[in-house]
């Protein structure tokens, strides 16, 4: 038992509110970075939203390991439904109530009695969804993952290089979609891989009459993204989607993909969907 609802935490920025009383409510508590665990925190928000009616059944608190400035920027940008607190201002309470001893990302699920029913390190967004499907399922048909034939409309995008709103890329499209399942993995590894095969991507798009583009979900920090795109010297247009892409999220949930290749026809319908591995299989020979 944690008695978590009565714990006192220190507000670190003006967007913070006190921890709400949590009687009769399940509670998700996460420790993580608003930059590198953004997909998890976003999923927490959407799972809380799904459980608002007929009455709120899920609460959420995130102890962010980032600086107050980064937390502030994130809260302004993303308007999360979870209470975001700076871990650095709540170290002792987090240690006492949750046993948090470092800044490694953690996920806790507490039942309405305050009992911890799950505790796990290095959680992914898909882990939270699986946990809530098990302990606190919601009624209704689940969202379908993106599939061939679906419309692939981007609700709004910004130019990654200029951070300004622009028109989405035209169809037919060859989109290299960075899902944000692990933003650090994308920034450190997958973008490098994409850069290494950029010419092959352009060639493939040219042959198919498609517009090649890098697409990033909203889970990435725009400033980090801009730096990385510029550092790697990409030629391809790069867009960040400003709203949710639930069909992509569900694809990530099902297949755990960090990068998805989405090709569309002139009508904007998905004509081909592939993992990065499968895509590379078609354009690269084995390393030997």
């Amino acid at each position: 038992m944690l008695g978590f609802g009565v714990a006192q935490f220190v507000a670190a920025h003006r967007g913070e509110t006190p921890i709400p009383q949590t009687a009769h409510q399940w509670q998700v508590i996460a420790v993580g970075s608003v930059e590198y665990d953004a997909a998890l925190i976003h999923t927490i928000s959407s799972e809380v939203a799904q459980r608002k009616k007929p009455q709120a059944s899920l609460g959420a608190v995130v102890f962010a390991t980032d600086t107050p400035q980064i937390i502030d920027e994130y809260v302004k940008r993303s308007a999360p439904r979870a209470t975001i607190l700076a871990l650095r201002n709540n170290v002792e309470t987090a240690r006492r109530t949750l046993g948090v001893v470092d800044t490694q990302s953690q996920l806790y699920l507490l039942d309405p009695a305050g009992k911890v029913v799950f505790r796990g390190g290095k959680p992914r967004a898909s882990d939270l969804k699986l946990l809530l499907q098990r302990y606190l399922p919601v009624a209704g048909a689940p969202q379908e993952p993106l599939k061939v034939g679906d419309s692939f409309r981007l609700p709004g995008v910004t130019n990654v290089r200029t951070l300004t709103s622009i028109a989405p890329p035209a169809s037919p499209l060859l989109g290299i979609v960075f899902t944000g399942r692990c933003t650090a993995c994308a920034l450190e590894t997958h973008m490098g891989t994409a850069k290494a095969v950029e010419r092959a991507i352009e060639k493939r798009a040219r042959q198919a009459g498609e517009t090649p583009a890098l697409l990033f979900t909203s889970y990435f920090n725009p400033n980090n993204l801009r730096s990385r795109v510029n550092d790697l010297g990409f030629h391809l247009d790069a867009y960040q989607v400003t709203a949710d892409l639930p069909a992509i999220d569900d694809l990530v949930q099902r297949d755990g993909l960090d990068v998805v290749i989405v090709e569309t026809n002139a009508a904007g319908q998905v004509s081909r969907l592939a993992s990065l591995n499968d895509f590379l299989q078609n354009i690269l020979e084995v390393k030997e």
Partner: protein
Amino acid sequence: MRKVLALLGFAMAFAPVIGSAQTVAQAVSIEKLNLSAGTGVLRKVIARGDRVYVLDAQNHHVLVVKNGSTVTIGGIGNGPADLYQPFDLAVDSQSRIYVQDHGNKRISIFDDKGTSLGGFPDTPKSLGLAVTRTGEVLLGQPQLGSLISAYDKSGHRIRSFGALVRPSEIYGPSYKRFDANVAMFNRVRIATDDDGNIWAAFAYMPLVCKFSPAGQLLMRKKLEYPELAQVIASVGVQPPSDAFASMNMDGVQLTMVTRDIEYEPHSRRVLVLLGNERTLVLDNAGRDVSGFRPAKFVGNLQNVWMRESGEVLFTVYASPAVYHAAVIR
């Protein structure tokens, strides 16, 4: 790079050193296998008779597929029959299933229906899991001062064996900086053969060892394949090359020189998956018999298994598919 290669001619004591015959790796066409079972990101595939065991790290469970029907073992959670971020899998002769339940920091044991048979803490954190014919659970735990430790099913450590190898012995003086953290470089994958011998492939060094059932070193084999030179040259380089798969077990991201080792009982061969997608096929003495590699790149292979028919099964990093290929033995 030339210097590193020259230093690979290190001397091995106490056991015969088997040279590396330069066999040609057969190029095989790799296709996705339709398992008729829903899967997420897979970490390992094992086949026994008509059963295929799949470790699905994304969904925190093991699938046992037989004739199109599937038994699901585990699922996300902290309970005795749950798994969280499972990392490795072994199956014994009684069809018991052993899972390195990484997120729950334990070794979990199940029967083939998915009923928990208990388990024990995986402390210190292991890499490499195998089960002997006598039911010992073998874990690669170099932090304990030996390569491998053997446990009973209750988690009592029975013995440890295998001398640790200093990285500078293999890679030369420039790797002395890693010698103080020798355990990090002695991470091994483990397989057992029909005679009860224990095989270990070093994840971060070009080395394969064979031990007797009692843990006596029988053979050490240097992996001196020219095409492995690029992989070896990137071990310990920060950051590791994107061209090869790497792993962070002990706080440092290191390129993997070998990724898996398995024993194929029907042909009595040992398969060693190298860090460049090539699989070595070794005989009982550790001599090269043959080898194979994918004809086209399908992603970084992480696990290889050969069925009685000669069909080879693979898992690929971050992929939800099992791949297979027909290999001429």
